[in-house]
């Protein structure tokens, strides 16, 4: 077999991989066919990797094998984490992906066999900038999600000006390199400045905005891989990067709509921070509370119950107790469903994965738009660890920072029960008028313990 014949076979392998990648995403349209999607992706990836090992340019295998083994050694434990740790795992994998793309771009710059043209320089510079900022940005996001770093937004005066100047600096250095690619000394400076920008981009963003940030970083990681495909003239990278980039992009748009944020906010990553300075005069309002016994008797008298899970459920690790509650109520003939707000949790789809892990059938997990019409016929809405996504002020109070955000209309249910540690306002620091409604009962306590006590009262376990 001569070299050009071999190259053709390699190209066919890559084309097959691309087809399998597209099928992989197609199978993901429903939970029933999703496992085929994973299989298609795995075969495609295996095919592409194996083909690459036969590439005539590859002459030494020692370091490839060692690093493949190291990669598997890191990847397997990261693939086995608990579902509660999935958001930080995802952020970390965005960091790894972006780092690889950036490093390959850097290596490509330093190979320097043929002198780089201005056009190629531009491609490499842009690719390396996006890869580098996504790398550090994702590391910061992972640190916040793992709670190594403070989850609260870290803000200071003139932040946007500083951040944008740093980005401008990186782009300026890129332009200087394009004008004269011989100024190689500028290249590492540009990389460092881009790395700094990634830190500045994500540091001011708080925990509740994480679903949007993770999606956005996903998109950046994808587009950096696609750009790398341009640099290396590799169509398989262009396709995989475009698929990943558009996926992250669509998810960011969905998350934005679910938080009533504008599209420009996403593009520039300038997340307006909600400052709860207008707390002002707080009149004492009465709240009614209930104990597990009372809550249990209300639930067992109901015929339709909707449970609204939020990040608090994940923090309290209450999902398995919630499953027991689901089981015991279902046995009593109560219709129990779960209302999932798109931004509940710390990443897109977070609640679904947690509840699925706890063995709750997925046809009981209902999206916001589908379930909102059913709340007026719902006997009990039980809110576990969710706050802002249930705040009726988003519909009515124009002065509220979350005004206009689509919410779950739990206040239309006959009875609302809220499991909450205390009356402290939620993450965004916004008071929730839901808690003062006449049909609302506050269930004060730890989510896991409280749900456990309700289950005990209902005669389960």
């Amino acid at each position, binding site marked *: 077999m001569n070299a050009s014949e071999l190259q053709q076979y390699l190209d066919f392998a890559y084309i097959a991989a691309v087809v399998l990648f597209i099928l992989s995403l197609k199978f993901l349209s429903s939970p029933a066919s999703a496992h085929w999607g994973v299989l298609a992706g795995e075969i495609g990836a295996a095919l592409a990797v194996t083909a690459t090992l036969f590439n005539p340019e590859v002459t030494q295998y020692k370091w490839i094998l060692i690093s493949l083994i190291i990669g598997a050694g890191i990847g397997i434990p990261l*693939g086995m984490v608990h579902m509660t740790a999935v958001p930080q795992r995802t952020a970390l994998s965005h960091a790894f992906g972006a780092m690889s793309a950036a490093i390959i771009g850097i290596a490509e710059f330093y190979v320097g066999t043929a002198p780089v043209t201005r056009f190629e320089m531009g491609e490499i510079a842009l690719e390396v900038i996006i890869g580098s900022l996504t790398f550090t940005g994702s590391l910061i996001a992972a640190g916040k999600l793992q709670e190594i770093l403070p989850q609260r937004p870290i803000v200071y005066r003139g932040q946007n000006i500083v951040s944008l100047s740093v980005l401008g600096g990186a782009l300026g250095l890129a332009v200087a390199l394009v004008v004269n690619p011989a100024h190689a000394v500028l290249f590492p400076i540009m990389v460092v400045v881009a790395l700094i920008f990634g830190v500045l981009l994500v540091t001011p963003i708080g925990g509740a905005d994480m679903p949007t940030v993770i999606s956005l970083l996903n998109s950046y990681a994808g587009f950096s891989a696609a750009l790398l495909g341009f640099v290396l003239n590799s169509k398989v990278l262009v396709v995989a990067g475009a698929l990943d980039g558009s996926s992250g992009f669509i998810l960011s748009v969905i998350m934005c709509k679910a938080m009533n944020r504008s599209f420009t906010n996403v593009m520039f990553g300038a997340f307006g921070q909600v400052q709860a300075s207008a707390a002002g005069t707080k009149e004492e309002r009465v709240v009614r509370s209930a104990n597990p016994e009372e809550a249990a008797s209300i639930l067992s008298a109901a015929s339709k119950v909707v449970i609204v899970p939020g990040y608090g459920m994940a923090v309290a690790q209450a999902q398995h107790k919630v499953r027991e509650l689901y089981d015991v109520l279902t046995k009593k003939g109560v219709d129990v469903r779960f209302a999932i707000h798109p931004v509940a949790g710390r990443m897109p789809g977070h609640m679904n994965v947690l509840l699925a892990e706890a063995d709750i059938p997925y046809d009981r997990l209902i999206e916001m738009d589908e379930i909102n019409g059913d709340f007026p016929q719902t006997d009990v809405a039980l809110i576990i660890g969710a706050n802002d996504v249930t705040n009726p002020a988003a519909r009515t109070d124009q002065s509220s920072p979350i005004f206009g955000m689509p919410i779950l209309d739990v206040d239309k249910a006959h009875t609302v029960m809220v499991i909450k540690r205390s009356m402290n306002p939620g993450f965004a620091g916004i008071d929730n008028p839901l808690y003062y409604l006449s049909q609302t009962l506050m269930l004060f306590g730890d989510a896991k313990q409280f749900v456990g006590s309700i289950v005990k009262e209902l005669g389960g376990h």
Partner: protein
Amino acid sequence: MPADFISNLYVFILAGFVGFELIKRVSPLLHTPLMSLTNALDAIVVVAAIIIAGRHETPLTTLLGAIAVAASFSNMVGGFLITDRMIRMFKSRGSKQS
């Protein structure tokens, strides 16, 4: 503008549209597995890393290539593994009783 750039741009735009149409159809139930799966697919940059690590140029490029192979391959292995685990957790009521 190089001819390669133009053909890559075609591919990029078409793949972007395909991605858009496919991802719109993914059930919101599966948005977390979607993100881990696209992450694993994106880890295909490992093929570029393998070439850099195996091309035997300077020690620096071999080192950079090796780091990129390890990082992207860990994404590939970990991404497929966790996506598979998550998807197995999604059961309908019918399959749960069996």
